[in-house]
């Protein structure tokens, strides 16, 4: 305090010095109360200034840190890459940035939301600013912003959106694709097959006497059968096949890059597996069968709906011929000719 008064009472020429002094105090207090890490490096990457934020969050002692290379003070930093980034700031005299979206953090600092976040360290947005002083010496100012909250909520939002997108594609009962998503997929696969001149086949299948099953054993039993049959069929498919619930007890499978013979083979396997599978409902053995219609995309169809109609017709054929069997669009055509 005494010093302060002494300064005031000095001559006029010192007024400027006083103002500078006050300014310096204000600046340094702002820097120390900022909720942002401030770090200044010289041209050799040695730390020349750091603010309270960093001192508090790093638990390092100023006298051990100031004057030290940033890479020895913070050994967690990716030295090669970051030095190259620093040199771009020095050489090009342009700012550089590092966002949590690409790199969660640079400095291993603890954050203030320990319970709700899944990362041990504070998520950071870092800015590297070129600083040039009167005496032509160059420095880099590093600003470290705590964006743990942003990162946390953004990650949560992304996860929720992904979950929602998934839910909107899935049939609640059978956990396979619902009709809407299945149909969208068919539209895409149809376009792809046309564009690249690739084969594409379709299987439509229907549980036989499903209404009777519901009447005899109740709807819970019917649901169980739908779930079990879906799971069984799923286990027989390749990853690229797209399996969906088309209607109540009707299912459909898109088979990309598959010819009719392959599709018939798969349909036959599904038919046999289901026919020989014994399902248990309330200690009762239940046997179900399916009828399947198969079709392959040919030059004739002008849209994907026509492919559905073809396999649907084949499915009716299989039903008409006594169920528990496979019919293809080919044989239904030949049957019609006969």
């Amino acid at each position: 305090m005494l010093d302060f008064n002494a300064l005031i009472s000095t001559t006029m020429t010192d007024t400027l010095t006083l103002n500078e002094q006050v300014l310096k105090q204000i600046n340094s207090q702002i820097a120390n109360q900022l909720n942002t890490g401030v770090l200044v490096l010289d041209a050799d990457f040695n730390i020349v200034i750091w603010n309270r934020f960093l001192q508090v969050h790093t638990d390092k002692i100023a006298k051990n840190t100031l004057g030290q290379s940033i890479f020895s003070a913070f050994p967690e930093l990716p030295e090669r890459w970051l030095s190259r980034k620093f040199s771009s700031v020095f050489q090009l005299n342009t700012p550089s940035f590092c966002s949590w979206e690409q790199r969660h953090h640079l400095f291993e600092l603890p954050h203030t939301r320990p319970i709700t976040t899944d990362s041990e360290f504070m998520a950071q947005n870092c800015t590297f600013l070129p600083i040039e002083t009167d005496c032509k010496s160059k420095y880099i100012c590093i600003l470290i912003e705590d964006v743990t909250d942003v990162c946390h909520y953004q990650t949560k939002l992304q996860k929720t959106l992904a979950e929602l997108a998934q839910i909107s594609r899935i049939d609640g009962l059978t956990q396979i694709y619902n009709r809407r998503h299945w149909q969208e997929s068919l539209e895409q696969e149809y376009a792809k097959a046309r564009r690249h001149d690739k084969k594409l086949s379709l299987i439509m299948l229907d549980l036989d006497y499903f209404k009777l099953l519901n009447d005899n054993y109740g709807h819970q039993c019917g649901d169980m059968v739908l779930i079990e049959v879906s799971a069984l069929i799923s286990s027989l498919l390749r990853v690229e096949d797209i399996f969906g619930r088309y209607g109540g007890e009707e299912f459909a499978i898109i088979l990309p890059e598959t010819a009719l013979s392959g599709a018939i083979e798969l349909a036959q396997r599904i038919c046999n597996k289901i026919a020989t599978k014994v399902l248990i409902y309330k200690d009762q053995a239940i046997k179900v069968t399916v009828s399947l219609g198969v079709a392959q995309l040919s030059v004739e169809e002008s849209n994907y709906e026509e492919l559905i109609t073809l396999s649907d017709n084949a499915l009716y054929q299989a039903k008409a011929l006594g169920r528990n069997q496979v019919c293809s669009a080919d044989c239904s055509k030949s049957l019609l000719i006969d």
Partner: protein
Amino acid sequence: MSEFHLTEDQQDCLQELINVAMGQASDQLARYLDTFVYLKVPSIESVDAKDLMNTLSQQKNTMAVVSQGFFGYEGIRGEALLVYQEEDSGRIADLLGYEPDELSQDEQLIDISSILTTTFLNVFARQIDNQMSYNAPKLLPSAKENLSEHLQQMPFSWDLALKVNINYQVTDYSFNCNMILLIPETAITNIKHVLDRILAEF
């Protein structure tokens, strides 16, 4: 014709400022990258909002778009978009002198974009006695659909955009990208004032 269109003199003046900025920027870049950067005259077009959407949606394999806001004195501000095609992204790490495993592809794109944008705009600003600050660059997620969405959601309405086609060829391989500077209406008026001031000096 929009009132934001530049006169022939203004266009000439701006082209010259951009040429000089690009020349100095590529000299700096060549030194930094320690390689010869072959520079073609950047072609500058002013395009209005509708044309830009059309041009961009015609580009088939747009792979990535990085956006970075800039703002200087005298109300000169805007947003720089760097548009990359699929084949341009392969060796950016190499170009920047990074090891490929040190950073992700996204980060490489962001780094090179930031360097191109800020180096160029810094020199440009210096010529008109201005100084630029920059926002952190952002990679727009899945370029294709999001570019038009992004343009619609800009924090300012813009009628005129400056499309600067930059073509950087680096000694042993070619690297191309388009830089598009989106300038809001008010900033265009401000730029025109600056151009007129420069022209008046002659």
